[in-house]
């Protein structure tokens, strides 16, 4: 195992279930990008899993199988939409390349601003996150421009179930409960980040839930996220 002792405890508590909402969301996002952490969580799940044998059976209310069958019918086996991931990686690379090219041009043309350019590179103002359930699923692309305090969310092959909408949440321990950044569906949409601490915007976890068309009636996510991820800087 190659995770730090702290990460192994976090993995253990994730598997046991004792983390609070934001710690759990953060770890769920990290495991998508950190295979060692993902392995550590799975190892802990396997250690504790035999306890499930001791849980007494309870009959669920009614026959839920027809509803389950309806939901899985016609679903293709997973793993083939890797093209999505490739496309997204390409998109991230394109972002990076464009940003690098732009800053090069700026540096060449406006030599006097070289110092300012250097600061810009050390503190990037543009960020991108690919929110995904796992590596082979459709995704939501989130881009953040800290200068303009603006966020843009764009679904990639992702579509909410009929009659439902997606709602984007920013999750960070400093914010307490998850905070809504608005409702969207198939098309991209911009949201304002004014009033949010830039440090929180950079470090937070972003999650998308499925909600009624106007958004969650309670102001809090009404289900588990279907997409989750964190920002990375666009250099």
């Amino acid at each position, binding site marked *: 195992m190659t995770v730090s002792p702290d990460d192994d405890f976090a993995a253990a508590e994730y598997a*046991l279930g004792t983390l609070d909402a934001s710690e759990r969301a953060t770890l769920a996002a990290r495991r998508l990008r950190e295979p060692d952490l993902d392995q550590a969580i799975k190892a802990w*799940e396997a250690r504790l899993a035999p306890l499930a*044998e001791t849980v007494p059976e309870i009959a669920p209310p009614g026959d839920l199988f027809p509803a389950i069958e309806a*939901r899985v019918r016609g679903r293709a086996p997973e793993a083939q939409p890797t093209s999505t991931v490739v496309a997204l990686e390409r998109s991230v690379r394109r972002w990076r390349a464009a940003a690098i090219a732009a800053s090069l041009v700026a540096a060449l043309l406006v030599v006097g601003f070289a110092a300012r350019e250097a600061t810009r590179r050390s503190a990037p103002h543009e960020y991108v996150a690919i929110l995904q359930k796992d590596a082979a699923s459709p995704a939501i692309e989130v881009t953040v421009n800290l200068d303009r305090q603006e966020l843009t969310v764009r679904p990639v092959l992702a579509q909410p179930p009929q009659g439902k909408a997606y709602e984007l949440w920013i999750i960070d321990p400093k914010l307490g409960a998850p905070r809504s950044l608005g409702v969207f569906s198939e098309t991209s949409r911009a949201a304002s980040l004014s009033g949010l601490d830039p440090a929180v915007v950079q470090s937070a976890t972003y999650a998308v839930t499925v909600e009624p068309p106007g958004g969650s009636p309670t102001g809090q996510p009404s289900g588990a996220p279907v997409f989750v991820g964190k920002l990375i800087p666009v250099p």
Partner: protein
Amino acid sequence: MTIRGEASGDRPSAVGDDLAPLLSRTVGRDAAAFSTLYKRTNAKLYGVVFRILTKSDVAADVLQEAYVRIWDKAGEFDPRKGSALAWMATIARNRALDEVRRVRPASLEDQPEGFEPAAEEIDPLAARERSEGLARLIECLKGLDEEKRAIVLLAYYRGLSREALSRRFGRPVPTIKTWLHRSLAQLRDCLAS
């Protein structure tokens, strides 16, 4: 998988690992196998999620999502890493934990409805039917002090957070965290030995 104890009767037990072939047929999109898998395991998985969620409508939704996920992920089951039931229960339990943390963290934890918590706690040390993996885990659990063992078990069965455990056991949250870390490290080392 070995079944120990006197209660290994002729009822098809969910503990038995004849579930694994059903899972591998599910990978091949075999709807009949998936249906049998549901029939054999739904009461067990519902028991797992209901204890955490304590509300039958929420638990029923989570159970449905868990089976959709089992259908999607069946190819990831690795029999070398545990039983099919343990794998399926982990998926269901994770969905229940996501739900209980993200939806109404306080109310679900504080107001269990539907059963008497005191009367319903599970004592795995009393389990008569044990797979090899469970027998080893129980031996290691016996190495923990009684209160620390109770904390780990309540966290597992009820999905309680550190805060909820702190209220339940009348101990400060940092103490609960330290105890959890020590207990889990002890379990890890014991299971590895």
